[in-house]
C-alpha cells in the first residue's frame, strides 16, 4: 500500500508554479555562486631567513615522516639556548624535504640530507638551511660517506650497488657492485673508514660487513656476523662496533638471538661477541665524543665502555613505556639524546639527558625522528 508520486507524472500549468519556480531557481543560483566563490586557496611557502653561524653547537634531527606521504622534515636544536626550530628545510627553501629523511652528514659547512624514497640527497648550508645543490636519481639512498671533496659513497636498499658521487658537481659518477647480493635483497647501510678502507654493514636479509678499497672502489673482503647488522661505528681504538637485530620470527633468512660485535678494523676479525636474549631488538649503536663509550637501544638505553668484557647489568636509562627510535650523544658534552616516535603519526619527542642521567630538556620535533647529525 505505498503511495508513490513520481516526478515524471507531474503535469502542471506554468502559472501554477511561477512563485515556487523562481524561488527554487534562486536557491540553485545562490548555490552555484557560493561554490564559485568558495575556491580553495593554496599557500605557497615563504622563504624564511635563518643564520645560526654564531650559535656554536647545533643538532640536526632527521624526521623520517610517514613512508609514501612525503612529510619528512628537518629540525634544528640549539643545546645552549634549548630552542628547537622545526621544519627548517621547508621554512628556508619553501619546499618539502621529501619522503623518508634517512640520515644526514656534514662536511665543510654543507649538510647532506639523504631522503630515501625521494631518490635524492640535498646539500644545504648548515647555518641558513638553504639548499645549495642536490644529487638525484638514486635507487633508495640510505647513508653518505665522504672519501674526498670530490668523491663520496651513498649506500642503498633494494640495490646491490653503492653509488659513487661527485659532491662538487652533484653527479653520480659510478657504482660499486656488491658480490652475492641481488637488487631485490640489496641492502648496504652505514659506513666507517679506517685508512683507505671503508667498512659497510649489510642489513636487510644480510649478515655481512664488507670492506671496500677506496682507491679501486671494489669490495676486497667481507666478514660474516649475525643476522641483520643494523648500525656501525668505530671507537677510539679503531674497533668497529656493530649490533644485529637477529631477524624476525618466520623469516626464511633465519631468526636468532641478536648480538653486539667488536671487530678489529686492522685485522678485520671479530674480537668479541656480546649476545642478547632471543627476541630482543637492539639498534642504533652510537659513540660519545671521545669514542670510548658506546650506546645502543634495546628497549632501554644502554651504555658500555669500549673495553668492557660484558654488557652492564643495568641500563643507562630504563625503558619508559615507549619505543625509542633514535639515539645520539653530544660529542662535546656527552649529553644523551633519545628520540621517541610515540605513535609514528605525530610530532616525536626528543629527550636530552646529561651523562649523569639527569633530564635536561625535552622538545617536540617532526614525525618519526630517526637520525641525528651534530653541527
Amino acid at each position, binding site marked *: *500500500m*505505498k*503511495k508513490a*508520486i*513520481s*516526478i515524471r507524472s*507531474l*503535469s502542471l500549468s*506554468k502559472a501554477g*508554479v511561477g512563485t*515556487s*519556480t523562481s524561488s*527554487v*531557481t534562486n536557491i*540553485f543560483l545562490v*548555490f552555484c555562486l557560493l*561554490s564559485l566563490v568558495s*575556491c580553495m586557496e*593554496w*599557500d605557497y*611557502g615563504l622563504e624564511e631567513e635563518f643564520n645560526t653561524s654564531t650559535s656554536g653547537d647545533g643538532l640536526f634531527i632527521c624526521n623520517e615522516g610517514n613512508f609514501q*606521504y*612525503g612529510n*619528512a622534515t628537518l629540525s634544528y636544536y640549539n643545546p645552549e639556548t634549548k630552542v628547537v626550530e622545526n*621544519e627548517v628545510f621547508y621554512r628556508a627553501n619553501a*619546499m*618539502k624535504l621529501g*619522503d623518508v629523511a634517512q640520515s644526514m652528514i656534514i662536511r665543510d659547512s654543507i649538510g647532506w640530507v639523504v631522503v630515501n*624514497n*625521494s*631518490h635524492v640527497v640535498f646539500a644545504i648550508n648548515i647555518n641558513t638551511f638553504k*639548499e645549495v*645543490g*642536490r644529487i638525484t*636519481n638514486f*635507487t633508495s639512498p640510505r647513508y653518505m660517506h665522504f672519501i674526498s671533496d670530490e668523491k663520496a659513497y651513498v649506500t642503498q636498499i*633494494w640495490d646491490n650497488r653503492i653509488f659513487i658521487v661527485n659532491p662538487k658537481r652533484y653527479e653520480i659518477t659510478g657504482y660499486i657492485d656488491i658480490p*652475492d*647480493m*641481488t637488487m*631485490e635483497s*640489496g641492502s648496504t647501510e652505514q659506513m666507517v673508514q679506517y685508512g683507505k678502507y671503508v667498512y659497510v654493514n649489510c642489513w636487510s*636479509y644480510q*649478515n655481512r660487513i664488507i670492506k671496500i678499497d677506496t682507491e679501486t672502489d671494489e669490495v676486497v673482503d667481507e666478514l660474516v656476523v649475525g*643476522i641483520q647488522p643494523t648500525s656501525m661505528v668505530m671507537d677510539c681504538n679503531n674497533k668497529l662496533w656493530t649490533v644485529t*637485530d637477529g631477524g624476525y620470527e618466520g623469516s*626464511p*633468512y633465519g631468526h636468532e638471538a641478536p648480538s653486539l660485535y667488536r671487530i678489529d678494523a686492522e685485522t678485520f676479525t671479530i674480537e668479541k661477541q656480546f649476545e642478547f636474549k632471543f627476541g630482543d631488538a637492539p*639498534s642504533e649503536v652510537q659513540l660519545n665524543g671521545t669514542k670510548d663509550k658506546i650506546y645502543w637501544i634495546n628497549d632501554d638505553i644502554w651504555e658500555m665502555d669500549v673495553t668492557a668484557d660484558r654488557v652492564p647489568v643495568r641500563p643507562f636509562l630504563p625503558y619508559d*613505556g*615507549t*619505543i625509542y*627510535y633514535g639515539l645520539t650523544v653530544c660529542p662535546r658534552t656527552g649529553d644523551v639524546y633519545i628520540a621517541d616516535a*610515540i*605513535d609514528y*603519526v*605525530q*610530532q*616525536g619527542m626528543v629527550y636530552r639527558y646529561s651523562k649523569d642521567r639527569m633530564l635536561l630538556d625535552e622538545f617536540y620535533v617532526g*614525525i618519526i625522528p630517526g637520525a641525528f647529525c651534530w653541527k
Partner: protein
Amino acid sequence: MKKLHIILLLVLLPAFLMAQDDNDIKWYLSLPEIPIYAERPIKEIGVQQTKFDSIVLCENIALSVADVLTFNSSIFVKNYGRATLSTVAFRGTSASHTQVSWNGMKINSPMLGMTDFSMIPSYFIDDAVLLHGTSSVNETGGGLGGSVRLSTKPAKNDGFGLQYIQGVGSFKTFDEFLRLTYGNDHWQTSTRVVYSSSPNDFEYRNHDKKENIYDEDMNIIGQYYPIERNRSGAFKDFHFLQEAYYDTKKGDRFGFNAWYINSNRELAMLTVDYGDETEFENRQKENTFRSVMSWDHIKEDWKVGAKAGYIHTKMNYDYKRDLGNGVMAHMIQSRSKINTFYGNIEGEYYIGKKWLFTASVNAHQHFVESRDKSIIQQDGNQATVGYRKGRVELTNSVSAKWRPVDRLGMSVVVREELVGTEWSPVIPAFFIDGVISKRGDVVAKASVSRNYRFPTLNDLYFMPGGNPDLKKENGWTYDAGVSFAVGKEGLYLLSGSANWFESYIHDWIIWLPTTKGFFSPDNIKDVHAYGIELKGNLDVALSNDWNLSLDGTLSWTPSINEGEPRSPADQSVGKQLPYVPEVSSSVTGRLSWKTWSFLYKWCYYSERYTMSSNDISLTGKLPEYYMSNIALEKTMSYKWADISIKGAVNNLFDEEYLSVLSRPMPGINFEVFLGITPKFKN
C-alpha cells in the same frame, strides 16, 4: 586558456546540438522517482540507508563507484589520485571497517580488508545501497562503519538491445562501453564491456619541490616551482560482465553473473620524487574474476534462496629500475593470489503483514598466497618471503521484524560469525521506527548494535610483521534519526533526513613501524566516533519542460582517539583521527529542459589532519577543498536509434588540491561522450 576551452565547450556544444532536428524527440531525460511511502517496507524497519539509482550510477562511463560516492554521499572517499586506489569509510572509521558485497558476495580483500572502489565501474552496478552503522548488521558482520551493497539486476528488455558509448577526454583518455542485451518472458541476458585507458600525464604545479638553475660552478642562481606532468600514472582497465537470468514465472528465478577485470596501472610518482621517470617502473597488474550463481524461490508468504560464488584475484606489483644498460631490474616483485569460494542460503517467512522472520548462512572460504620478496639465504639458496594461508569465514543471522501497528515497527537481528577457528560473540542489533506524523511522512528511527571485525590475513600473517596475537576489533553503535517527505502532486517533492550516531570502537588495529625496519599491526586505539548526517532532496517541475532536482548531504563526524597515551609525550588522546575529515558535504543539481540536461556536482571536505596530535605543519597540510563538476547532455531520438552526446567538465574551477599528501590531482579536464542505442525490430 583553459577557461576559454570551457566557455567554447559550453557555447558551441549547445549551438551544434540545437541544429539537430527535434521534431521526433520524445521525453528521454529522466529524473529520479522519489516515492513517498505511506507504509515502509517491513524489511527496512529502522534501517539508515542511502540508495543510488541508475540515474546516478550511469551518469557517465568514465566514473567509478568511488566517483559516484564522492559526489553523491557524505561518506569519505580517500583518493590517492586519478585511476588510483580509492577507499571509502563511513563515519570516521577506516576503509577496512566498510564491508562491501557484490550480488551478495563479499568482495573486500581478505588480505587487506578493504575494497578499491576505483576498480568498480559505475556502469556495472545497477543498484547501490549504503547501509550506515548498525544497519549493516542486517547484511553482514564486521561493518563497524557500515556496508556497501552493490548489485546487478535484469535489464527487463524485450528482444535484442545494444548500447555503445565512446568517451574521449583530456590526457588522451579513452572510455568505451558496450552493452548487449536480450530478453523475453523468461530470459534476460546482458553483456557489458568497459575499457578505459590514459597516459594520465596531466599537468600540475608542483608546490612540493623546486627546480634549481645552476651556473657553471654549480651554484644555484635561481629556483622555481615546476609545472610537472603526472609521472608514471598510465592505466588500462578492462572490465567484462556477463549476466543471465531465468524466471520460470512460477516462483523460481535463476541468475548468473560473471565479472572479469584486467587492470594494468602504473603507480604515479610522488610530488617529492626526484627519480627519473624513465628509469623507474612502478606497476600494479590485477586479474580478477568474480562470479555468482543464484536461485530464488518466491511464494506469497515465504522465500528461500541460495547462492554460490567464486573469486579469483591475481595481483602483481613490480618496482623496477634501469641499471643504466637498459635492463630493468626488480627492486620489489610482489605476487599475491586469492581464491575465494562463496555459498549462501537464506529464507524469509511472513506471518500476515505484521511479522517477518529471516535467516541466512553465508560462507566464504579464502585461500591466499602472498610472496613479497625473493632473497638469498645464508646458505646461498634462494627463498621467498611471504605466507600461504586458508581461512573460512562464516556468518549466520536470524531476524524477527514486527509491525504491530502501521505506525510502529521493531526488528531484532542476531548474528554470529566464525572466522578461522574463532567464533565471535553474538552480534545483536535492535531497530525501531515509528511514524510521528502522517502529515509530512515524518518517521523517527533508532537502532543499536554490537559488532566485531576480525583481523585480516595480512594483519595476522604478513611477512614480516604479521601479528597472530591480534584481537578482533569490537564496538557498539547507536543510531537515531528522523526523516520526512512531502510532495504536492504536479509541483514538487521534498524529502530529507537527519541522523545522529555514536560509535565506540575498541582494539582498533593499526600498523606501526618497528625497530626492525618493518611495520607490524597491534590493537592500539579506542575510538569514539559520533556525529550527524543530513540528507535532503528536492525535485521540482518548474514547467512542462523544465525540471530541477537537487540532492544534498552533509556529515559532521568527529572521530576521537580515546585510547591510553602511548607515552607521556603522546598528544593524540582526545584528538580527531588523522585523514578523517570532520565535515564533508556534497550537492548535486540537475536541471533539464526537454531533451537537454545540465548537471552540476559539488563536494566539500574539510581540512584533514595528517598527525594524530592534530598539529598542522607546513609540510603536512591538507587544506579543505571544494570540487565542482558539470555536464551537459543532449539526447536525440531517430527511428533507427537514440543518440546522446554529453560534455563533462571535471574540476571546473581548476582547483589545485590534494586528497592525500604528495599525490598530485588533475586540474580542469574535459571529456565528451557519444552514445548510440540502435532500435531493433524486436
